């Protein structure tokens, strides 16, 4: 028999499990928060951006994860946590989109577009998922024309 964890961890809702499975197969950075805004997963591409794999970092409480990649606007001003698309999506239950600059672990700056959408079910909100689209084509996967992620 396998060793099942004695201190029971709450089973994640299926919708988050499926989202994680999908994200794991993507080459674009993607982030997943639960219904309480806790960052519960990010994929390998996001790990490259942050300089740390999710397995090393683990879950990150709400209000803290935004600082992982220090998003700031075109004037170099930090974007408030409440204004991040992922936060809007989980808070308001509607899609959100924004363009901003992130700083990767190696100090390089990347202009990205971020799209976030809420994960809603018959039983209510499960959380939200955000994908980052590198405006400069520098992060993650490749599209059909080689200019960006598919």
């Amino acid at each position, binding site marked *: *028999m396998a060793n099942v964890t004695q201190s029971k*961890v709450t089973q994640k809702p299926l919708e988050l499990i499926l989202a994680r499975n999908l994200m794991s197969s993507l080459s674009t950075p993607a982030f997943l928060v639960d219904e309480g805004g806790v960052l519960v997963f990010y994929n390998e591409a996001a790990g490259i951006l942050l300089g740390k794999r999710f397995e090393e970092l683990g879950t990150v409480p709400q209000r803290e994860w935004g600082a992982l990649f220090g998003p700031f606007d075109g004037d170099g001003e930090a974007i408030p946590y409440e204004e991040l698309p992922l936060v809007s999506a989980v808070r308001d239950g509607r899609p959100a989109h924004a363009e901003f600059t992130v700083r990767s672990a190696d100090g390089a700056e990347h202009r990205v577009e971020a799209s976030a959408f809420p994960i809603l079910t018959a*039983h209510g909100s499960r959380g939200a998922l955000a994908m980052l689209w590198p405006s400069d084509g520098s992060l993650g996967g490749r599209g059909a024309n080689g200019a960006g992620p598919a």
Partner: protein
Amino acid sequence: MKVKLWGTRGSIPSPGEDTVRYGGNTSCVGVTLSDGSLLALDAGSGIRNLGLALDDEPRRLHILLTHLHLDHIQGLVFFAPAFWPQTELVIWGPASPEASLRDRIARYISAPLSPVEVRELPCDVSFRHCPEAEWEIGPARIRAASVTHRGPTLGYRIDDAGSSLAYIPDHEPALGADLGALPEEWISGFELAREADLLIHDGQYSDEEYPDHLGWGHSALGDTLRFAHRTSARRTVLFHHDPTHSDERLDRLGAEARQRWVELGGEEGAVTVGAEGGELELPVKTPQIAEATAAR
């Protein structure tokens, strides 16, 4: 709990000389609780024989549907107690944003697919969406959770008299996931099957067949065994057999499963291939209930 397999086949009934031993009827499991009351898990064609085995005494029957694919509901209109006015039938199933459980089932129990309509059933029938929280039926605690399959699909866990049964007949937990590496809270169906005394689980495909059926919502044998091993299920019954699998094919799959289970470190004999008509009894672990059961 007493468990009887009335239908072990997946997808479509497959009667014939090649399926005599494991059976050709589609999914249905009868569960007799410690107080003697009866639940049916799914209503595939196997529920017809379950109904024929009952006397016509007034009773309340609960049918717990995992989902509404035809092989899990096609027996409803052939379930004799549904045609007895003295029967109270409570049908549980998954919610859907599209339509109520009653309306979705009524698409099958209506013309031109059926000679009777839901409203014409003589029994007292009600339809209930499974809640997210645990609930009780008689002495049993029931838990339902969404699991990886196509469309809204539930797995069930029934705890009664200290024993537990997990029923996840249509399940593809390894879709896009590495069952060996994922943390347990990220594995579909994990909490339902955790340390269950009996796990009845999808075992539709061999590992060789699975790549051609990726995303169809069913498991390869190897994934079923890994899931059972990760969840520490004490006993596993392979279920929802592919309709093309003959008795001989299932014999071979069973032998492979037993060997691989032992190689995983599992207890010998703890994995079996579900056969129609098979009965299993889960031990009563609660002393007071054990006495009452013995006295009955």
